[in-house]
């Protein structure tokens, strides 16, 4: 089973090829605003380094959000085009859950900065079940959850919420891929980003 992992949801682009609990090849680069340039190139690079053809991939795993709208769309467009043309399974991965899968914990709060004192977050128990569902919400709500559950807090970047410093969590590709390996794949046509947030134009409309 050869899996291609694609993550363009944060400031990093992470591409990895995983086979039988081993990372065959991977690239992680912090390239803010250049995901559009390099993602397909990196995929080509890891395939070549692994001596694989695109068709050798069995499953495509792509982080479909939440995160940067544009960033997520880049990875998802590539993944759905590959899955459709190669007729392979594609499995969406949560950018929040994959952080909790990258660390041992009791309660884990995965949190991403969404600007203007808003955050995307989800709370997981030690078996990575979603205790508080993934959502877009305010800093106040986040602080309330931290107070109540006293979780380990992880993020995809170094952030500070009030006085709480949260450092960037490295991704554990093997654990993430193993967790998602037997999760249900989606039809490539139906694979879309999980934005967790409406476009501004629609938010104003519903006010």
């Amino acid at each position, binding site marked *: 089973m050869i899996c291609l992992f694609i993550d363009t949801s944060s400031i990093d682009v992470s591409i990895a090829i995983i086979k039988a609990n081993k990372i065959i090849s991977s690239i992680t680069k912090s390239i803010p605003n250049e995901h*559009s*340039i*390099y*993602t*397909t*190139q990196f*995929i*080509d690079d890891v395939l070549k380094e692994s001596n694989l053809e*695109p068709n050798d991939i069995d499953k495509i795993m792509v982080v479909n959000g939440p995160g940067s*709208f*544009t960033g997520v*769309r*880049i990875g*998802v*467009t*590539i993944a*759905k*085009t*590959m899955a*459709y*043309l*190669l007729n392979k399974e594609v499995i969406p991965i949560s950018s929040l859950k994959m952080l909790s899968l990258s660390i041992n914990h009791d309660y884990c709060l995965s949190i991403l900065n969404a600007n203007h004192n808003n955050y995307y977050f989800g709370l997981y128990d030690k078996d990575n079940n979603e205790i508080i569902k993934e959502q877009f919400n305010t800093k106040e709500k986040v602080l309330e959850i931290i107070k109540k559950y006293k979780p380990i807090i992880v993020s995809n970047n170094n952030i500070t919420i009030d006085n709480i410093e949260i450092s960037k969590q490295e991704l554990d590709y093997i654990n993430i891929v193993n967790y998602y390996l037997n999760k249900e794949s989606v039809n*490539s*046509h139906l694979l*879309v*980003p999980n*934005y967790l947030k409406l*476009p*501004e*134009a*629609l938010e104003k409309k519903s006010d």
Partner: protein
Amino acid sequence: MKDIYCLAIETSCDETSMSIIKNGTEEIETVILTQIDIHKKFGGVVPEIASRSHIESITIVLDELLEKSHMKISDIDIIGVTYGPGLIGSLLIGLQCAKTISLITGKPLIPVHHIAGHIYANNLEQRLSFPLIALVVSGGHTELVYMDNDYSFKRIGGTLDDAIGEAYDKVAKILGLEYPGGPKVDKLASQGKDTYNLPYPLDDDTYNFSFSGIKSAVVNLVHNEKQRGNNINAEDMCTTFQNRVISVITKKTMKAVTEFKVNNLVIAGGVAANRGLREKLEELCKEKSINFSVPRIKYCTDNAAMIGSAAYYAYKKGIIADLKLNAKATDNLYKY
């Protein structure tokens, strides 16, 4: 010579379109999914909503194209894609899809400038003859381009502010016509009289255009009349506006035809569908025995067929991109 089949992708604004074009001239199949109904309620294209719609439909459009054309992805020789100008979030969906196809198939990726595409829409009707002057008029562009050969562009003028189609849509909006209002203004213009006092937009010796002044003049006039309790005659307003705009555009276009000593004029872009503009240019070209070409309506608005035609000639010229090709919201056509 071997036939070249181009798979072309265009997602620069609110149409998700793909096409297969043979040898730059023959349309095998085109699929266009328009988002007009989605954006109508906002009175214009909302970029974030456009991006979201593109990603929902991108592989569905590709699937429909391959099915309708009875072709496989391995039958494709080159991949043409609009890399700009346009809405960046929209462009990115088509661009990433095109790059992925190139990655999988190993076939050359051809970057196509959206304006080049519009000009080459005419090549799907009849092979372009050179030298020519091209007038590109749309919701985002107003450009005069000189070409002495395939895929060789020299911009000789363009708008300094609003695109002509933008001005049409804004005039339509102030008159209460539903988005996209440009075609409705054209229709009403054929039913009214030239009665209002509107200025001629940038009526000078240059090849540049400016439409923000006449647009503001219409807005002010409508407001003033309303405040006085007078009704606006929409037909007459449209006639007057269209007369002024078309008068200047056609004058400058014909001046370019004369000065650059060409025998061919092509028009392109969404506003090339404007009947008033087509008829006037046709008449002027007839007088001067200039060959005049205007695409069918379906090739005027955004579509991938025109991108597939342009991509073929770009490819012949050796314009090939690698997987690091990026989308550009703005870019010069004329660097090639």
